[in-house]
C-alpha cells in the first residue's frame, strides 16, 4: 500500500511542481498515473521511491515512511526508472545477481526467478552479454527483471511500456494483473491512454502539479458527463 499525504515539492521558489498531493493506492490495485509532459508524474514517482525529498507532507510504503524509515520502505519497492540505460558495462547476469545481492534474494530463489523472468521476456540467451550490446527494449526488460527479482510488494514503474515490443508489453501487463491479483500494489505512469483504460483499476490525472482527477474510468466519464473517447476526456481535463 502506498499513501501519499499532503505532499508538495518546488524546484524553484514560489512555483510548486507538486502541490498538496493526496493519494492512496490500496493493496491489490493497479493504479495508472496520467498527465501531460511536465505535469509532475516523474517528480511524484521520484518522491515515492526516495530519490527526491518532499518539501512538505509524507509518503508511506506499507506503513513505513520513505523519509524517516527509508530502508524498510525501499525494501518493499520494485522500481523501474524511465531510462533503462543502467550499468551498461555489466553483463545481464551480473546485473541481476547484483540486484539480487542488494535486495538479499537467496540463491535458490534468485536462480528460479531469473530463469522465469528472463525466459518470459526472451532475454535469457543474452544474459552473458554486456547490457550495452542490448537494444533499448532489451535494456528495458533487464531493468524490469532486476526490479521484480525480489518479488517486491509494491511495483512502481515510470513509463514501463516505452520501447517494449507488443509481446513483451502484453506479458508485462499480464504480470501486473497477476501481481495485483495476489493482493499487491502496482503504480505506474504512462502516456498511453489505451493501456490505462485496459489495465487500471483506478487512474489519477495530474496537471501542473495538481491532482485533477482520481477514480475509475467509469467515474471519470460520469463526472465529466462526456460520451467521447478517453483521449477527448483526458484533453478536456488537462486543458482546463
Amino acid at each position, binding site marked *: 500500500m502506498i499513501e501519499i499525504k499532503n505532499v508538495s515539492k518546488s524546484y524553484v521558489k514560489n512555483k510548486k511542481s507538486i502541490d498538496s498531493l493526496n493519494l492512496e493506492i490500496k493493496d491489490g490495485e493497479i493504479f495508472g498515473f496520467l498527465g501531460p509532459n511536465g505535469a509532475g508524474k516523474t517528480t511524484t514517482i*521520484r518522491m515515492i521511491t526516495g530519490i527526491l525529498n518532499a518539501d512538505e507532507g509524507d509518503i508511506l510504503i506499507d506503513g513505513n515512511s520513505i523519509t524517516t524509515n527509508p530502508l*524498510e520502505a525501499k525494501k518493499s519497492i520494485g522500481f523501474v526508472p524511465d*531510462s533503462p540505460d543502467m550499468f551498461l*558495462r555489466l553483463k545481464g547476469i551480473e546485473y541481476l545477481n547484483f540486484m539480487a*545481492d*542488494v535486495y538479499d534474494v537467496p540463491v535458490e530463489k534468485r536462480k528460479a526467478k531469473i530463469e522465469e523472468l528472463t525466459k518470459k521476456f526472451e532475454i535469457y*540467451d*543474452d*544474459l*552473458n552479454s554486456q547490457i550495452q550490446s542490448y537494444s533499448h527494449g532489451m535494456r528495458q526488460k533487464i531493468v524490469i527483471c532486476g526490479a521484480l527479482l525480489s518479488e517486491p510488494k509494491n511495483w512502481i514503474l515510470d513509463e514501463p511500456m516505452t520501447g517494449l515490443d507488443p509481446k513483451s508489453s502484453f506479458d508485462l501487463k499480464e504480470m501486473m494483473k497477476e501481481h495485483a491479483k495476489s493482493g499487491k500494489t502496482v503504480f505506474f505512469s504512462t502516456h498511453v491512454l489505451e493501456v490505462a483504460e485496459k489495465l487500471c483499476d483506478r487512474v489519477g490525472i495530474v496537471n501542473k502539479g495538481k491532482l485533477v482527477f482520481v477514480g475509475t474510468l467509469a467515474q471519470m466519464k460520469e463526472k465529466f458527463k462526456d460520451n467521447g473517447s478517453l483521449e477527448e476526456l483526458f484533453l478536456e481535463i488537462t486543458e482546463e
Partner: protein
Amino acid sequence: MKKVLELTKVFLKTSFSNMNSQMGIKTKNKIGIVALYIFLIVYLGGLIGIFSYNIIELLKTINQESIFIGLILLITIGFTLFQSIFSSINVLYFTKDSEYILPLPLKPSEIILSRTIVILVMEYFVEAMISLIPLILYGVLTGMGVMYYITMAIALILIPILPVVLISTIVMIVMSFSKLVRNKNKFQIVATIIVLIFSVAFGMLISSTNGEVTDEQMMQMIMQANSMVNLIDGYFPTLSTLITALTSTSVFEVIVAILETIGISVIALIIYLFIAEKIYLKGLVGNLFSGNSKKSKVDLNKNNFNNSKLYKSYVGKEFKILLRNPIFLMQCFIPAILIPILMIGIVALNFRGIPAEEFQEVTSLIPNNTIVVVSVILGIVQFFYMFSYISITAISRDGENAVFMKYVPVSLYKQYIYKIIPNFIMNIFTVIVTLAILQFILKMPIITLLIVFVISMIMNAFQSILMLVIDLKKPKLNWDSEYAVVKQNMNLMYPMLLSMVNIGILVLITIITNSLNVYIGSGIILVVYGLLTYFVNRYLYKNQVKLADNII
C-alpha cells in the same frame, strides 16, 4: 574550411559548456566561487613560479640557465604526448556525437580536422598550465627582449601539433583494425593499451638515439656556458629547433628555427590528414556499431547465481565498470600503477651512466631513518596520489544512473564507502610500487618503509573520503561521453590541490620536528591525518542524506 570551423565550434561548445555550470558560475555564491578559483590559480601559479625561480637562479650560477628552456619544453612535450594518448582515442573514437555527425554531408578530413583542433585546444590548456609561467619568468630573469616573448608565443602554438598528430596517427592505425574484431568491447580496451605501449616504445626509441654522454663531454659542457642544453635536444623532432628558437641570440637563427618547426609540423599534418582520409571513417564505423558482434550464448549453471556479500558485490560492480570501460580504465586505473613506474623509471634511467660504486657512495650519504627521508617519500607518494581519480569521479562516473543509490534499500553511507574502496585499493598499489622501486634504488631500512606505508594508508583514507565528499557536492552527472567525466571536469583539480596542501603540511611538520626523533615526527603526522580522516568520515556519515541532494 567554413564547415571545419563550424564543426569545431559545435564540438568545443559541447565539450566545455558543461564546465561552466559545474564550476558553479551561475549559482548564488558567484563571488565566493570566482574567488576560490582565483585563489587556486594564484596558489598553483605561485608554486610553479617559486619552483622555476629557484631553478633558474641556481642554473645561472653555473651559466647553464638555457637548459631550463630545454627542460620546460621537454616536460611540456612529454605531458602533451601522454595526454594526447587519452584525448585522441576519446575525442576521435569514443564521443557519442559521432553517431549524429556521420550521416551529415561532411568529408572525413573535415571531421578529423575539427576533432584534431578540439584535441589541440585541450592540449593548449595543459600547456599553458605547465609552461607559461616558467617561460615568462625565464624571460624576465635573464633579461630577454621582445623577440623572446614573440618567439615564445609562436613556440607555444607550435609545440603540441607534432605530438598530437603523431599520437593520433598511431591511434587511427590501431583503431582501423576494429572492423576485423568481433568483440568490440575488449578491442577498445586492448587498442588503448596497444596505443599506450606503442607510444612509450616510440618515446624510448627517440630518446635512445640521443646517445650517451661520457664524463669528459659532461665536464666540457659544464665548463662552456649554456651548452648543457644540448643534452636534451635530441629527444623529440621539434624540440631542438624550438630550443634554438628560444635560446639563440641571432635573429636569423631564430627565424630559421621557427620556419623549420612550422615546416616539420605542416608536413606531419599533411601526412596525417592523408592517412586520416583513408582510414579514419572505417575505424570509426567499425568501433561505433558493434551490433553484429557475436553474443556468447549463456549456459547458466549454478556458478552464475552467486550469493555474495553485499560489499563484495558492490565493490566488484565498481571494479568491473572501471575495468571494462576503456576511458575509465585508462584514466582511473592504469595511471595508479603506470605513473610511479614511468616517473621513477625516467629518473633511474638518467642515473644509468653513473658507475654503481659512485651511486652507492651518493646514496649512502642519504641519512637512513630520519623524518626528512620519511617526509620526502611521503611527498613523492602524495605527488602520485594527484593522479588518483577514482574517488573524485565515483558519483559522476554513474551519470544519470547515480540515482540508483537513492532508491535501493542500502544505506547511503555504506554505498559511499563501497565506492571509495577501489580508490583506496589502487592507492595501495601506488604506494607499494613506489616503495618497491625506491627500495630497489636506495636500499632503505625496513622500519622506514613500514612507517611510510602506515602513514600513507591513513593519508590514502583521508584523500579517498574527502574526494568523494567533493564529488557528492558537485557531481557531473550529465555527460555525453565518459571522457567528459575524467577530463572536462573541474573537480579533477582537487586531488592535485589536496596533494599540494599535504606536501605543504609535511614540509611544515618536518621543519618543526627535524631535531626530534623520527618516531615523534612520524607520530605527529600520523595523529594529524588520523584526526583529519576521523572528522571527514564523521562529516560523511552525519550528512549522508543531505550530500545526496545533488544526485537527481
